[in-house]
């Protein structure tokens, strides 16, 4: 257990260093600052609706940035190890492929969470500076967003072991963004289709990662209050089970990968 803890700590530290020393993340942070600071200073004629619109925009930016970071971090966990051949000295150490996968995943999620936390600090600051307030929905919204990031990293990690980087990032983004915006409408859409197509749409609905379960932007912006505790816990459990399944699949793929 001590060995595993030290291995995970080393992998988490590696992910943090990698994330925060990357030029693209540095650029993203600067971009975040450049977009959020003007938002915080905007006084849209004192109109409440306009202020909410700014909040919505800021939240959409936070979601976009977090998706970009999560997919990028998940994608970079294994392919660079194979390309630079660092996978050999790494797996020649006392660590199994399964442990390496779990350790790297934890590291990637922790690093992505640190970036998300940074963006939420900016968002909360921008709202407070405009005189806005938050109610009980804020902690729930943040926790669900963190769960979404953990899910997105696992999607990208599995994809990185199966297809090329560009294909993985495109497919993962397409699935997660598609479900985020259209996921809740799929059953309704399936009703109007012929049985074969309806079956396809229903299957997609059953197996695709439901990003929309974690989206509390509207509640946050309009102050609709927190969701029921059970619903909240079910969404978290969904993320945990989905991540576990994806990691299990990734472990099988990595285990069969020829070195």
């Amino acid at each position: 257990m001590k060995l595993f803890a030290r291995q995970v700590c080393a992998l988490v530290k590696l992910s943090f260093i990698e994330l925060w020393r990357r030029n693209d993340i540095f650029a993203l942070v600067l971009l975040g600052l450049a977009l959020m600071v003007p938002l915080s200073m905007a006084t849209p004629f004192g109109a409440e609706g306009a202020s909410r619109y700014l909040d919505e925009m800021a939240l959409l930016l936070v979601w976009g940035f977090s998706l970009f970071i999560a997919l990028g971090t998940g994608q970079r966990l294994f392919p660079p190890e194979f390309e630079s051949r660092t996978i050999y000295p790494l797996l020649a150490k006392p660590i199994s492929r399964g442990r390496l996968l779990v350790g790297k995943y934890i590291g990637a999620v922790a690093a992505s969470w640190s970036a998300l936390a940074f963006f939420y600090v900016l968002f909360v600051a921008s709202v407070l500076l405009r005189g806005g307030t938050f109610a009980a929905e804020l902690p729930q919204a943040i926790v669900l967003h963190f769960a979404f990031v953990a899910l997105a990293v696992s999607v990208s990690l599995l994809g990185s072991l199966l297809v090329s980087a560009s294909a993985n990032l495109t497919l993962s983004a397409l699935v997660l963004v598609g479900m985020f915006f259209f996921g809740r409408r799929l059953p309704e859409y399936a009703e109007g289709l012929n049985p074969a197509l309806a079956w396809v749409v229903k299957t997609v609905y059953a197996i695709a990662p439901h990003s929309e379960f974690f989206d509390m932007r509207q509640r946050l912006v309009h102050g609709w209050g927190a969701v029921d505790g059970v619903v909240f816990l079910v969404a978290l459990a969904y993320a945990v089970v989905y991540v576990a399944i994806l990691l299990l699949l990734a472990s099988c793929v990595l285990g069969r990968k020829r070195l």
Partner: protein
Amino acid sequence: MSECPDIVQLEGVTRAFAGTKAVDGLSLKLKAGEVMGFLGTNGAGKTTTIKMMLGLLAPTSGTVKVLGGDPSDPHVRAHIGYMPEVATYYPYLNARELLAFYGGICGLDAKTVRLRADSLLESVGLADAAKRPLKTYSKGMLQRAGIAQALLSDPDLLVLDEPFTGLDPLARIHFRELLRGLKERGKTIFFSSHELGETELLCDRVAIMKKGHCVYQGPVKDIAGDGATNLERLFLKTLEEAK
């Protein structure tokens, strides 16, 4: 030497890739404290053999035992140090961070890693560059960082894949002395190389591979009596005879 236990034991090992045998029926033993040079032309099966010794590849048939166990077991690998032929490592880390990372993977505590890293960076001549990112390192410096990471866990068996590649003459002499020091400390060393002169200077025994087959195994001191005056002649003669 005959009373020493076998650190590496390969019995009739074959590894095939899509029907082509990269290693065919290889049997090899390496005793504790021995230094063995593993020679052969490109594609002879040296790296495949090394990967099987590290548990990175499973043999198609035959058995591989390292330190009395299966090298695919992480507990066995805890006693093996490995330096790959080419590795760019993590360009955004510096040498000290690289060793801290590998130390963590080996399960070493922070204090031990710090002490060993200081001493290893000094001994491989990277102490002055320890805080520079690895992306600024030359090939030779990366090789030295690779040697340092291989030695970090103070392994009983050191497996080196082409360790002299990219080293300048001075670094080569320095590295040779480093390996001699390790041998004197009783470490078992197995390395593949194209550098026949270095192999002759360092090894107790050599094995020569050709197209997946081991065509020669013997002590370096016997080479003169084999009709050849040095390892280079023996190497050429063996490969010629194996045609």
